[in-house]
């Protein structure tokens, strides 16, 4: 039986136009909506699969304001069986603070005899892209850690993880408990079912306040890179443009004349 904790973060959608808040310290996402990163969707799926294959529980955790319950319920709707909200002003929490706060919750659960054998996180958050919460969390808990992992399964009480390396697919075998950061690519997240959605509405979310005093992220401010005016040269329309395209390829030296 493997009890899995999967950590997710409520982040602004990046598919629409991005606007900054008036103080340029955060993204104004009121009009674009919120989601979690693609890596985290895969981590949630991995947690559900491992818990179901081993008869364990998949617990979803998010750190942030009460609004994060929306993303927590999305994870319950696809199969997580319990949920934790670590209530905190996420904007004031740097990646080290987030790791400390999650470690605190894990330690508390361990003391209450509900330990997590495997903790999954996304490889990097879709908004801050810090690439480090999983590693810092693992060190805080004294556990081994992997990042950039595409697939993971539990075999004979150990996590067998695979990820892309420079020479092929790298295979790791970690004793549990461990922390693994999942990268999109090897796991296909499922869609929620109607009964899943109904269950998610009813599932209680354990809410704890983060007691960590945040050191912060070091953010001085945000800015949007300047958008240069379009300088596109239209070579033509339809198939008739093919000779102009090949002329361009010759000019660029991509093909010889």
């Amino acid at each position, binding site marked *: 039986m493997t009890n899995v904790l999967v950590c997710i973060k409520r982040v602004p959608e*990046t598919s629409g136009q991005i606007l900054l808040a008036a103080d340029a310290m955060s993204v104004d996402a009121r009009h674009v909506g919120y989601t979690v990163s693609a890596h985290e969707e895969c981590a949630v799926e991995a947690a559900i699969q491992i818990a179901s294959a081993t008869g364990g529980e998949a617990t979803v955790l998010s750190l942030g304001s009460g609004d994060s319950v929306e993303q927590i319920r999305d994870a319950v709707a696809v199969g997580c069986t319990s949920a934790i909200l670590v209530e905190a002003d996420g904007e004031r929490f740097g990646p080290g603070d987030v790791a400390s706060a999650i470690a605190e919750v894990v330690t508390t659960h361990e003391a209450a005899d509900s330990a997590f054998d495997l903790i999954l996180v996304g490889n990097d958050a879709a908004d801050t*892209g810090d690439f480090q919460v*999983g590693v810092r969390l693992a060190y805080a808990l004294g556990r*081994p*850690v992997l990042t950039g992992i595409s697939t993971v399964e539990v075999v004979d009480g150990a996590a067998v993880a695979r990820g892309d390396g420079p020479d092929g697919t*790298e295979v790791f075998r970690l004793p549990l408990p461990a922390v693994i950061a999942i990268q999109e690519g090897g796991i296909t997240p499922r869609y929620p079912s109607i009964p899943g959605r109904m269950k998610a509405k009813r599932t209680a979310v354990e809410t704890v306040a983060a007691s960590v005093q945040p050191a912060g992220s070091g953010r001085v401010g945000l800015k949007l890179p300047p958008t240069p005016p379009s300088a596109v040269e239209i070579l033509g329309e339809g*198939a008739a443009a093919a000779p102009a395209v090949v002329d361009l390829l010759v000019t660029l030296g991509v*093909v010889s004349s």
Partner: protein
Amino acid sequence: MTLVLVETDATGATETSLETLTFARGVAARSDSAALEAIMVGPLSPDVSDHVLDQMREQGVAVVHHAEGGQLSAYAAAAWAAAVVETATSSSTRVVMAAGTPRGSEVMAHVATRLQVPMAANVVAADETQPLVVSRQVMGGSVLEEMRLDGDLAVLTVAGHSTSARPAEEPTEPKLVTFEPALTDADLVARVVSIEESEKADTAGLTNARVVVGGGRGAGSAEGFADLLELADLLGGALGVSRVVTSLGWRPHHEQVGQTGSRIAPDLYVACGISGAIQHWAGCQSAKTILAINTDPDAPMVTKAHYAVIGDLHEIVPAINEELRRRQAHPA
């Protein structure tokens, strides 16, 4: 000193490592300790080692640290980090950095955690050096964050292809220091136990290709990529795709270009039927020239491109392929 973790492949230091060295040289020159040093970890063949030393000379590196020993024969991020930390703490180091590759990011996260200092990921510029203030890509590269790294030592990764590798004005004669780092059993728990053959070679082909032909939703189906594959073949390039294409199962994930895929910097990117959402733009914006083929003249990919052809890729790409074959058969 400024210390750079250098990753190597079968021929020498990787392009992103050379970019990082160029970036680091700029930071070092503006700070009070200008020495630039490099560290490599793990076994290297004599040929590769010699070539790397040549590359380090060109980059103006003063000392090359090479951590080796039997325990480092298989990759383990914690062991690599232990070697980097041992080197960084053995003399007065101000900044430790690596390329923002999967391995560079992983090792630097360990290094920052061990040194109990913050880490800035995907940095594109150093705005100030005392204290270090950097600009880094957030929100998939669509927003820049200015971040201050307080403390005596800063750890960062440099966004791939955000700068280009340039030789130093004054080449150096780097001193090679080989050492065996002190490792604990815990440093070796998360290590590679085996490597399975995969289509990874294709990914390397994609990230290093001079020409990439990209396909998006406009391809319409898995079969819709035949013409694009032929164009890539005719141009001696690689195929790259947008996220929607892999989500729909039309093409494998290792071909994905974007925030959650590969970052590319080809001489030419031919973006066919790709709207140019931030997720994708994050991975292709470093292309030197972009040619967009799209039915929508207002698509972001078209307005951001250098050149565009408006229309259906299924008519345009076969016509380009035909024209290429015709000119190959009858050179001017």
